[in-house]
């Protein structure tokens, strides 16, 4: 593993954390959406992270030093829907109210989403620090020759 390959590992984490923030933002934006294409209220989405060694073998993989097995990148393995029951609120005047006057609202908890968003931002920053450290090491190595 060389130092340039490490930048790519941190890069995969930036990508994954950004996707997580995007999903969280979409959940917050749709916290009160009662109509979707699939019908029914919006359902909370959740990202699943998985560690992997996804770098293919070949010239570029070798160039980046991805030949040993213990380094692990992170990937979004999938986006899953939270199938928990919708929040029911009494609002007889609402066009989507059922016969009893209750409306199914999304199972999105704004507080939970805000915390998730903060966590994603912090993890993103942590990976940026890792990139800066790796960058400083590469620069130090370049300066040996000067």
């Amino acid at each position, binding site marked *: *593993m*060389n*130092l340039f*390959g*490490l930048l790519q*590992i*941190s890069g*995969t*984490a930036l990508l*994954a*954390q950004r996707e*997580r923030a995007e999903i969280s933002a979409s959940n917050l934006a749709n916290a009160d959406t009662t109509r979707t294409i699939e019908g029914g209220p919006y359902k909370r989405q959740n990202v*699943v*992270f*998985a*560690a992997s060694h996804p770098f293919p073998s070949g010239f570029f993989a070798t160039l980046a030093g991805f030949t*040993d097995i*213990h*380094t*692990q*990148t*992170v990937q979004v393995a999938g986006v899953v829907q939270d199938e928990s029951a919708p929040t029911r609120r009494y609002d007889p005047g609402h066009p989507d109210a059922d016969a009893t006057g209750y409306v199914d609202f999304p199972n999105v908890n704004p507080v939970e989403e805000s915390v998730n968003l903060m*966590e994603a931002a*912090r*993890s993103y920053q*942590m*990976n940026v*620090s*890792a990139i800066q*450290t*790796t960058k*400083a*090491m590469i620069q*130090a*190595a370049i*300066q*040996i020759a*000067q």
Partner: protein
Amino acid sequence: MSIMNTAQLTLLEKFLDLATARQSLLVSNIANVDTPGYRTQDMDFHGEMIRALSQDPGMPMIPVPREVPGLLSRPDGNNVSVDREGLLLAELQLKYQAATQAMRAEFALIRSVVSDAV
């Protein structure tokens, strides 16, 4: 031992190689800070350094990664501690810079020998 193959340079080269290997583990840990079930990986730097110096210089170094014991696991099975990784990241960066500085000094020494001879 030739002029360009001093004991110090060999030592520093091995140190930089091992530091890079360790950095790769730290970066992996930080990348997987939110991956369920991921366990913190690290290596015995001191032990690996001794092993690298005792083996044949031409042999490639393959450090053995191991799970770090004694870290607090979260409910999802992940035990990456951001404090630990951040601290080690800063420490390793400074050590790496110290080693590259020492290497520059060593090369400056060799250069002064060469230029004096001319």
